């Protein structure tokens, strides 16, 4: 039995650390250099003098805070609606006795295979006709719709396993379905809800194409679209572009730094849905 050389294995582990992190660190360096430093080709050098002015330019001319708050608003509303709506459906599918439970589940599961971009044009036509194009609503509605399948799947899987005795005794005490849902089912379902939150957050926070297609007002843009426009407008101010990219990545990186375990677990749970 031939065994791998230990040193070789550790080298194998180290390579991806460099390949996956170095580009991000390089971007950070890049964002702190002057244009001349960037162009003179010393790629591994630290900035000679840290150029915070790049961040100042990016911050002042890029309406960063506007984009950030738009992203926070759109993502938060989407997350709240997804949690509420999909836990209601999940409850009905997993705990009620009715004929069409499986059918409803199948409809949701089918949706997981439908590519979002195939709905771009028809959605645009529909939104134009109901006059909500270029509003945050035109983003939030499809975001909710495309986040529900996974959420319903994860939540109903969890709810199926809640012991029936809890519900039963509440029922005997005279609580109705709504009451049981609100004060028993929702509180115990917090762990899968966290998973749903993480998945929805990562997907929606980073979504770019719908935003770029449906939004045209500068003041309504979300962060990824905002980053994209900034980069195309300031195409030769390399340092400022770097700074804006770093600022664009920062919120997610910070959240990931504190919650990396929950996030990786959530993403696996989301992947295992199929």
């Amino acid at each position, binding site marked *: 039995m031939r065994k*791998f050389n230990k040193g070789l294995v550790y080298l194998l582990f180290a390579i991806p650390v460099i390949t996956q992190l170095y580009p991000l660190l390089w971007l950070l360096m890049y964002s702190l250099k002057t244009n001349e430093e960037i162009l003179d080709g010393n790629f591994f050098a630290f900035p000679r003098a840290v150029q915070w002015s790049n961040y100042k330019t990016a911050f002042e001319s890029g309406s960063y805070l506007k984009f950030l708050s738009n992203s926070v608003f759109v993502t938060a509303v989407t997350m709240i609606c997804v949690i509420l709506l999909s836990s209601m459906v999940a409850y009905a599918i997993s705990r009620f006795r009715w004929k069409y439970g499986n059918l409803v589940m199948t409809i949701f599961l089918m949706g997981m295979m439908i590519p979002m971009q195939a709905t771009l044009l028809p959605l645009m036509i529909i939104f134009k006709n109901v006059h909500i194009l270029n509003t945050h609503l035109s983003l939030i509605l499809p975001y909710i719709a495309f986040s529900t399948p996974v959420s319903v799947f994860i939540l109903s899987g969890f709810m199926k396993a809640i012991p029936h005795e809890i519900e039963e005794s509440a029922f005997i005490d005279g609580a109705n379905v709504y009451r049981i849902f609100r004060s028993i089912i929702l509180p115990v379902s917090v762990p899968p809800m966290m998973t749903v939150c993480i998945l929805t957050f990562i997907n929606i926070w*980073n979504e770019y194409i719908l935003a770029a297609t449906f939004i045209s007002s500068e003041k309504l843009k979300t962060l990824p679209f905002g980053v994209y426009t900034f980069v195309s407008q300031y195409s030769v101010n390399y340092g400022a572009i770097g700074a804006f990219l770093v600022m664009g990545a920062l919120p997610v990186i910070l959240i990931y730094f504190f919650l990396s375990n929950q996030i990786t677990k959530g993403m696996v749970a989301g992947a295992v849905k199929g």
Partner: protein
Amino acid sequence: MMKVLKVPARTIAVFVLPCLLLYVCLVFVPIVVSIYTGLLKWDGLTPSNFIGLGNFKDMFFNDPIFWPSVRRTLLYAVASMLEIPLCLLMAILLNRYLRKANTLVSIYFTPVILSVVIIGQLWKTIYNPASMGGMLNGVLTSLGLESWTHNWLTEPNIAMFALYFVSLWQYFGYHLLIQFTGVQNIPDELYEAAKIDGADGFKADRYITLPLIVPIFKISIVLAFIGSLQAFDLVMVMTGGGPAHATDVISTHMYNSSFLSFKYGYGSAIATFLVAVCLVFTGFINFFFNKLEKKYN
């Protein structure tokens, strides 16, 4: 014994309808609209003409961009799937050689959580010509490999591979994480039992890890495949399908036909094709892996 709640239809409606209606209206209705629009000749402004399957005929027989974009999409899928066995090997090694590999896996995972816009712009900067501060060309030049430098994103023969690479780079951590979780979930007792029977190391992997990892492997394959069929954002951000359609995939071709050339009917026909391909391939992969799982059990 009340196993499952029996509630009036009205209550069920209250719980199910808000979500279901929203979902059907925003996912299924658009697909149906899209299938119908695919049968029209329509520019979005002037009245439309019903031309039946005319768009599909054009797409299959007269469009010089269509088949190459399908080929690139499939190549994208194959490239992403080839990465997965490597991830599995790394996952097995990580699990064997390190007690606490979670931190390392979290580090590998970092690019996954970033927006494609950030990833795309970052790599555009890396791929830039050396005169614009591009890192890759700069490194090659300083190693004396000047002849290897390229305009990575503007040379038609290379641009697509440059894009594949970014995608493989971004999702490496994702597949590794999935495989790693799968390997971790295999109970240690199985390996101990195998050791007693004289099988350890790679022999144990052959008879224990591989069969048990099949379902997890399938998840990665489906994700990679569906992800590549839908590959879109990255191409849009980095090249928009250019230069001269050299990096067009199915969905960018659809987007450009609809939103740049204003061929709404034609774009919808491509969208219909995309949905059909996604459904067929997902079905096929599931079928294939169900057979494989049966064979192993």
